[in-house]
């Protein structure tokens, strides 16, 4: 058991923290980044690339940095603290994850460098109008035609789907609507004929798209993983993304905790700082407990994200997401309540952090969804 960062990890952390502090330390700057094409700053994205962050999870022999979940955690925590709007989760963690875990040699050779240098972004087109949190509830179809597949269906709320160059799309190639077998993943050119995208902002200031697929022709070479067996890959990469999301949430919470305590120290009411009121002190203490519990589970998520056995990995990631969600709701709501009116305004950071936490809760499974998964696995505390 060892919680210490290696020297390389510490170096990475310092440089990421510095980059984010420069780009987001002044909260006003976030609005500027959001106004860039696709809802983020392409200049900053180049800075990410220069620091090697966009090649972080790729193997060194393929030009990457060879970072693991701990490295991703360090980056995502900083992203959370800054409320970063750039598509790191979508492009590097998810997109990069699919390439790394299920991409063909040709894809990897072609696309990893494009991701690494910042010229290509990706998005995961998975959610459907009725699939909710069930990854195997897929009605978008892909029918085989010779050497290609033809895709039809609708994907919604695809994060950063309006600007992504390529889309990872889950489709059904066999079986009934919610069968685990018969799911196939494609890496699709977003500009392919038949793809219609309607972009929109998300509630937390990112971008998303509704994506209509009508007779979209995709060569079989663009399949990620194996035909009909895409679910295991999808679950694997979503678990990696869950660990990253957990780390991001911890970063957001840490920042909210800090701003709340600062506020309690400086805000005067009835002639004294409101931080001198014991009722508020106790609630700030409970916030800290919630943040620390979340941090512990983000560590656990990072530790388990690359576990190859899904029977061990999946319940662990579900447990982590449960804790993150529970802490996120408490910390977000309390931060707004304790900071009062100012936290209700659009100009102030805390409200946006609260909103980001609310949306992270709804990403890849809410509390009930993951509690069910934890309970079914029965692996945290085995029954007598």
């Amino acid at each position, binding site marked *: 058991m060892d919680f210490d960062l290696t020297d390389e990890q510490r170096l990475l952390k310092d440089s990421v923290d510095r980059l984010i502090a420069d780009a987001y330390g002044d909260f006003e700057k976030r609005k500027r980044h959001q106004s860039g094409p696709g809802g983020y700053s392409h200049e900053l994205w180049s800075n990410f690339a220069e620091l090697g962050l966009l090649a972080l999870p790729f193997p060194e022999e393929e030009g990457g940095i060879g970072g693991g979940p701990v490295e991703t955690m360090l980056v995502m925590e900083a992203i959370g603290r800054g409320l970063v709007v750039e598509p790191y989760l979508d492009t590097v963690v998810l997109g990069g994850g699919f390439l790394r875990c299920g991409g063909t040699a040709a894809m990897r050779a072609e696309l990893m460098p494009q991701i690494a240098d910042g010229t290509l972004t990706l998005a995961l087109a998975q*959610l459907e*109008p*009725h699939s*909710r*949190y*069930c990854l195997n*509830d897929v009605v978008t179809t892909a029918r085989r035609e010779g050497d290609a597949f033809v895709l039809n269906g609708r994907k*919604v*709320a695809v*994060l950063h789907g309006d600007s992504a160059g390529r889309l990872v799309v889950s489709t059904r190639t066999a079986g009934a*609507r*919610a069968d685990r077998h018969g799911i196939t993943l494609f890496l699709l050119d977003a500009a392919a004929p038949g793809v219609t995208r309607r*972009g*929109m*902002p*998300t*509630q*937390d200031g990112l971008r*998303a798209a*509704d994506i209509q697929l009508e007779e979209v022709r995709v060569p079989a070479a663009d399949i990620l993983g194996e035909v009909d067996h895409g679910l295991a890959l999808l679950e694997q990469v979503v678990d990696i993304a869950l660990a990253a999301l957990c780390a991001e949430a911890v970063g957001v919470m840490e920042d909210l905790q800090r701003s709340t305590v600062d506020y309690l120290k400086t*805000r*005067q*009411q*009835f002639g004294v700082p409101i931080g001198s*009121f014991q*009722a*508020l002190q106790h609630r700030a203490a409970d916030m800290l407990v919630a943040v620390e519990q979340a941090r512990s589970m983000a560590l656990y998520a990072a530790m388990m994200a690359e576990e190859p056995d899904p029977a061990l990995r999946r319940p662990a990631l579900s447990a982590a997401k449960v804790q993150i969600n529970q802490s996120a709701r408490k910390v977000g*709501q309390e931060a*707004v*309540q304790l900071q*009062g*009116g100012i*936290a*209700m*305004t*659009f*100009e102030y950071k805390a*409200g*946006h952090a*609260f*909103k980001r936490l*609310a*949306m992270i809760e*709804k*990403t890849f499974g*809410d509390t*009930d969804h993951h509690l069910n998964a934890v309970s079914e696995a029965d692996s945290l505390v085995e029954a007598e």
Partner: protein
Amino acid sequence: MDLRFTPEEIAFRDELRRFFRSEIPAEIRRKVAEGRHLSKEDIVTSQRILHAHGLATPNWPVAWGGKDWSPVQRYIFTEELQRAAVPLPLQFNVFMVGPVIAAFGSEEQKRRFLPATASLDIWWCQGFSEPGAGSDLASLKTRAEKRDGKYVVSGQKAWTTLGQHADWIFCLVRTDREAKKQRGISFLLIDMKSPGITVRPVLTIDGSHEVNEVFFDEVEVPAENLVGEENKGWDYAKFLLANERTGIARIGMSKQRIARAKRLARDTEANGRSLWADPDLRRRVAAIEVELKALEITQMRVVAAQRQRDADKPDPASSILKIKGSELQQATTELLLDIAGPYAQPAPEHEEGRNEPDGDGLDAIAPLYFNARKVSIYGGSNEIQRNIIAKAFLGL
């Protein structure tokens, strides 16, 4: 002891139910139901319909268009209005400045302002809060100096709700800087078109323009716009705040949201079944319904007790209504958010989109949840209410 409504009260309720649903445009009620923003026109339209039927200002003195209703009837009116998703009559007019002018204003002020206030020909906003004042209202700094028979007002007000639509603002200003906090405050009526007034919008976290800052730079106000006596403004403000707490629990609104949540859960699929098939969700909804039922009875107890109290004095039990009422308002928006799930993430592309009901209303749910965090902060935060209970009720 009988908690049931009398047959007369039931007839009264049923008539209001019918009236609200048949007379107020469905489009406006739908916006309210989905928690969308109302335009100025929506609010004016709705209030004028109420006014045309004598229902805009039932809490006013009968001489000025009020109704001689029992507390129970007033309670039924408010609950049914909310349950039918009818916009509340503009509270600054109907529950705040109107009653103050009726109680403390001069005859001239009454004639000049009350009819137009009831019909919403004058839109009022409230100038009480100031930056940094928060729960410590009496620490206000905006000052009014008497010069040449006029008041000259300078200072800044914060959290001025819907001030962007307002024709007039009622303000607390400091007219005696030597006097202790609560003394030395006066209650002024100020025309928003007066030179020296600037309104700056403040967006709330859901991106909506609901509140404003209002700046006063040497604004001249005729002396006849003083309500009551100089330096007695704090008394009128207390009278007004007591009125504000009536109906603060918003039980009808929470009921309307629960009904909507049930429909939404029934229509939402999860793992191939209706989300409503999940016993856990159903118990959660039932638990909110139970608390709300309890609060409804608690509110009736407060209402019934008012009959035996000095009507001008607020029952300290209103703190219970505020705490629990706001918690339940928030619980219903949380419920809606959890039911909407991942589909709550997309937002309308444009600010105006927030006003337009779309197919399913899902895009308005997260903003509703975000916005509802304010209800435990404003109107005396829930922390302040707990202080009040501890001191006034428990003697701690």
